[in-house]
């Protein structure tokens, strides 16, 4: 690992050097009715729009490598058959400028399934191979529990990582590409005082975590509590809307649909991301639905995240970013669900109603 120090003012230089490519970074997209800024990963043209001190983005950067809708192939149909053409839909490399550790870890988890498994998906691989990632140290929010998931820092999966030391950035350099980009701007070797300052900043960050999830033996406990009543409690609240999966940086489930053009001369095979909370997620040909009840779907969401993935990869599929909890209108939050499964005690309030 190579460490460098760059002055705050130099960061714009770095941005300009990278700007030959399409830069995606956190920008403010709106303001909530409570006056809180709402951030999103968007293409950034002007350095001043880049909000590196952002809280979190309401949506992950997923759409750039796992878009919600994607045409997998097109067919041109003629009298005696058809021709198929496949496009991995990669137009240009992307520079992600300012990803938090949770989102970098999320990419590493997606890689395990979509790149490193027996059946890698070329649509994802093509995009994944064409990205350059600049991480940035975050600012823990009340809903973040990445620390419990071991995803509060990233040890790989980025090209360079920035930590704000006040008037300068501490830079971890992990790829040759990053090293070469940095040659274009002024940097220096870190000194002892930089190391001391770095450790102080990280300690300060760690003090800001207020939410924790007890993951001890979680996979085992989920198995034991399969029949627990608390699932029903959460199921009654759940809207089966799929928003939690839409905002989750690690959810990758999808459905495929084939559609014939209205002139009957062409057809498309289209993929769209799905969610295990949707009513027909476990519906099979013939119409049988293995999970007709909302509580069983919600339960399996937790089982995939915290048990199934654990068995397969020895890690959870949740990075603790808290986006699903923030987005869920029914206020179903990961820390509360897991705590209730552990204790067997339903949160107080009318079942199916919002009484907290």
């Amino acid at each position, binding site marked *: 690992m190579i460490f460098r120090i760059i002055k705050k003012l130099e960061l714009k230089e770095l941005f300009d050097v990278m700007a030959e490519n399409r830069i995606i970074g956190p920008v403010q997209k709106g303001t909530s*009715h409570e006056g809180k800024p709402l951030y999103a990963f968007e293409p950034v043209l002007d350095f001043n729009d880049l909000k590196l001190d952002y809280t979190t983005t309401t949506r992950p950067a997923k759409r750039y490598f796992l878009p919600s809708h994607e045409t997998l192939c097109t067919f041109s149909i003629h009298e005696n058959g058809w021709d198929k053409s496949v496009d991995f839909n990669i137009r240009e490399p992307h520079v992600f400028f300012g990803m938090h550790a949770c989102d970098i870890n999320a990419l590493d988890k997606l890689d395990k399934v979509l790149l490193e498994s027996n059946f890698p998906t070329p649509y994802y691989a093509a995009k994944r191979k064409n990205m350059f990632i600049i991480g940035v140290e975050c600012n823990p929010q009340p809903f973040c529990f990445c620390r419990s998931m071991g995803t509060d820092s990233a040890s790989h999966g980025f090209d360079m990582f920035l930590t704000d030391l006040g008037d300068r950035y501490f830079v971890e350099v992990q790829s040759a590409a990053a090293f070469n980009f940095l040659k274009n701007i002024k940097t220096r070797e870190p000194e002892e005082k930089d190391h001391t300052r770095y450790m102080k900043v990280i300690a300060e960050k760690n003090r800001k975590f207020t939410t924790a999830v007890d993951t001890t033996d979680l996979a085992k406990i989920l198995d034991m509590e399969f029949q627990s009543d608390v699932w029903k409690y959460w199921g009654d609240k759940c809207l*089966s809307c799929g*928003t939690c999966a*839409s905002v989750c940086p690690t959810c990758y489930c999808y459905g495929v649909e084939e559609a014939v053009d209205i002139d*009957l001369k062409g057809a498309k095979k289209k993929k769209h991301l799905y*969610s295990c909370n949707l*009513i027909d997620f476990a519906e099979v040909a013939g119409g049988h639905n293995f999970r007709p009840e909302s509580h069983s779907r919600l339960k399996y969401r937790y089982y995939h995240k915290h048990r199934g993935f654990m068995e397969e990869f020895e890690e959870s599929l949740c990075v603790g970013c808290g986006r699903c909890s923030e987005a869920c209108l029914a206020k179903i939050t990961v820390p509360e669900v897991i705590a209730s499964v552990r204790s067997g005690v339903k949160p107080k309030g009318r079942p199916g*109603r919002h009484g907290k």
Partner: protein
Amino acid sequence: MPVESYLGVPLHRPKVAFFEFTACEGCQLQILNNEATLLDFLSLVDVVTFREAMSERSDDFEIAFVEGSITRADEVKRLKDIRKKAKVLVAMGSCACFGGVNQLKNRFNDPKWVKEQVYGKFPVESEEARPLEDIVTVDLKIYGCPIKKEEVEKIVTNLVLGKSVNHPKYPVCMECMANENICLYKLGEPCLGPVTRAGCDAWCPGSRFGCWGCRGPADAANVDQIISIMEEHNFSADTIIDRLECFGGFKAFAEELKKKTAKSKTKKKRAGK
């Protein structure tokens, strides 16, 4: 040129007819609106009756697309007659599926009074607005106010090719999130997206308007829950009822809520509040 075959297999061009009852004809207009694909549409099917677009008409049809709700005795008769002739009867748009905006007048419980308010002394027959299903069997529904032309085209293409027609079972939120919209609840607006059937590509939230539920309930609509969520966001009972009853798809829930609200109001009165 009509398409005669698909992948070497001869195609049957079904005879289709369009009918309207009490409605704004906006749904039919949607079909005509799509100039880029209108010719393709017309070459797939053989339109024998379409008052909006042509003057000839015929009683010999296989698929009847019916727009509008039913508000008069003669409409009942005409609809039954269409049902007899059609192999497939398609309810097109919110009015046909749920009564639509028209059924809002049913809320007054006094059709005579409504008629007087709207038409004065003018002699008009107008009863409660009812969805087609109240009178005849409906084979297929195309949701929306208005319907979405892309969806109709997809449905018609599938009908002609003998493929199954599947509506999304999930709610509008899925499409809204796919389009990267900011959720309206975060902006302090109510929205029925979490309980309304998708298929419109989150038309309203895409323009920063909350969903009014024109496509009716999704397959797993947890309406009780969205009501309490709206209450929690401090939207008044009237606001919630207005939304639920606007297009008729959530009629039962609107009525239940009205009863509940009325009860709690009398209770409050009695308690001298």
